[in-house]
């Protein structure tokens, strides 16, 4: 189902309007992608090469779409030096930083990089460190953190501007089960007052976090709708261990 063809009851936070992107050499990464994402946690699913990362890069402005556009009808949030709201929070897949910075230095530094007003930097630093549960590790060097702690520390830079839209690109990739659970809890808390767009390969992430699901396959939208619309698609399918896995395979299988 292509949900963008249907009217939405609520004002969408993000509108992906017929976005197409061709890389040099002619490879089409996204082909006329349409989606409307409401407030909540949006899970962006799809196999490798489906176009998820390309769509996220266009979303955060790192790439310019060959055609089409992405709009934020209600703004994206974030404070700049003038006290206005600009920018969105983004945790890239390969987020890292030299390990000789402490957690609080890293967050404080990115307050400045993101243009948080000077008088608010210290308090914002404390808030985001507390928000990612690293209060006890504020003075610890990044190099001394575990994988999960390091990922949370990286998340602070996406939060310092207090964005209304937070983009997370495979945030739990490479985590052990315990770290994954903790990170999911964190994302769940962060999602209470902001829209989160979450690219992931893990159905468990979708199960515990998502309110909305968009499935990309070969650069096109295979599904875009509420989780409550997505889950029933798994009924009657034999493959997959959970209803959402079955639904995911079913969506991709139907298309293939």
């Amino acid at each position: 189902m292509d949900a963008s063809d249907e009217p939405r009851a609520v004002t969408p936070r993000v509108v992906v309007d017929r976005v197409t992107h061709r890389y040099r050499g002619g490879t089409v990464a996204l082909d006329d992608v349409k989606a409307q994402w409401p407030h909540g946690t949006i899970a962006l699913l799809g196999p490798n090469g489906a176009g998820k990362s390309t769509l996220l890069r266009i979303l955060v402005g790192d790439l310019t779409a060959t055609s089409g556009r992405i709009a934020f009808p209600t703004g994206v949030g974030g404070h700049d030096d003038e006290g206005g709201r600009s920018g969105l929070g983004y945790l890239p897949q390969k987020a890292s930083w030299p390990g000789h910075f402490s957690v609080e230095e890293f967050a404080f530094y990115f307050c400045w990089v993101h243009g948080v007003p000077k008088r608010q930097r210290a308090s914002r630093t404390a808030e985001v460190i507390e928000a990612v549960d690293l209060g006890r590790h504020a003075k610890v060097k990044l190099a001394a953190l575990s994988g999960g702690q390091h990922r949370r520390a990286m998340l602070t830079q996406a939060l310092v501007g207090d964005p209304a839209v937070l983009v997370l690109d495979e945030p739990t990739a490479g985590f052990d089960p315990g770290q994954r659970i903790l990170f999911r809890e964190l994302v769940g808390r962060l999602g209470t007052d902001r829209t989160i767009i979450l690219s992931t390969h893990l159905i468990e992430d979708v199960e515990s976090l998502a309110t909305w699901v968009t499935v990309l396959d070969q650069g096109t939208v295979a599904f875009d709708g509420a989780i409550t619309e997505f889950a029933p698609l798994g009924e009657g399918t034999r493959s997959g261990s959970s209803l959402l896995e079955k639904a995911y395979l079913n969506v991709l299988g139907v298309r293939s």
Partner: protein
Amino acid sequence: MTPVTAADTPDIRQRTTGLGGVWRVALRRSAGLYVLPLMLVLEAINALSRDRDWATEFSGTLNWSGSALILAAPLIAGAAAAESVTLRRHGAAELLGVPQARRQRFHAMRVAATALWCTLGHLLGTGLCLGFYLADHGWSLAQAPDPTLVPVLPSLALIWTATALGSLVGWARPEMLTPLLVAAGFYAVWLLLVLNGGEHLAMTSGTAATPIGFRVRSSLIAWQVIWFGSLAFAGTVWHVRPRGPARTAIASMTVLLVLGSGSVLWSLDSDVSEPDPGARARWICQGERPQVCVTSEFAAQLSSFDQAVRPVAIALARLGKDAPLRVEQRIDQQYQTPRAMPVALTARRDTELQQVTYNALLWASGCDDTKLDLDTEAWLNTEIKLAGWLTGEYAGDAAGAEEVRTAGPEQARRWLDQMRSCS
């Protein structure tokens, strides 16, 4: 992990407030902090080398201090490149995101933080050199005719250039070998500059040697600062704004750079040339027949100069050659004063007595040793014997040494006559 509560973190706000600002973080975590000890070692080695014989003039001391950057600047560029490579490989580009303002803030402060540490290192080195100068001159600037620190400006501009360009290249090519290649490339540029006549630009302080010593060159300072400053600016601008109008700005700046350099080069020629150094020199003299004179910059060395040359001048008189009315420091290839005996640039009895003597004998003979009509080798051997007889330090073969040891004044006069027969 147990979730952290507010009760667990009562002092986070206090601690982050106490960080002391983003400059403190940037400086504490800059690559420059790691370069600083290396720079201090290089600066100290530079200051302690060559037995401090560079500390005779104020501007010459600054020039020597600047020369430390010939070694240090490529290392600074390499370190800046290493910082960029590290950040890039850690994914800093992705974390910074798209807004130009973020990238501009980040890169500009990073370059500034590294350059500030290196600037501090060089200024400490310069301070050490000037400390030696002052120690050798009674802790006074009275003998420094032009005690200006302006010649340090090109050195500082060079440090910022090295940082900006190294940082730019490291960011553009985040490979492990990049820092090494940046440093090696910088050394290669130095070499090419010197080999192709660009030694004025390769000099790292705004002073230049003249026939009467080191002198501050306003044109040279302006030229170097324009060059290095433009490169530093262009490197930083290119770094923070790799697309769009930055290229236009850099192209415009390059044209201005060429025009500015051209105009400075035009004046550099007249600034560097020295039409009449003797007329410019202010002489300080002591004693009578011969009156021994040095230029004012060498006033502190007048006594040692006198001790070095007076015995030679008197010995010449014993050989029938009239004692010169005046013995003066040679500041050019031309004789400055009629009947004056010009001798070496500086005169320290321990190292330059032989040279003083050779100059004296050349003057006494009235010959030009580059245009001798007679057997040059025989003439030079005679000069060496006579110089050895005068100073007691013969520099020739064993047979000659015996001849010099047993020679009396008559033999010495004959040697002098042989030397005079050149014309």
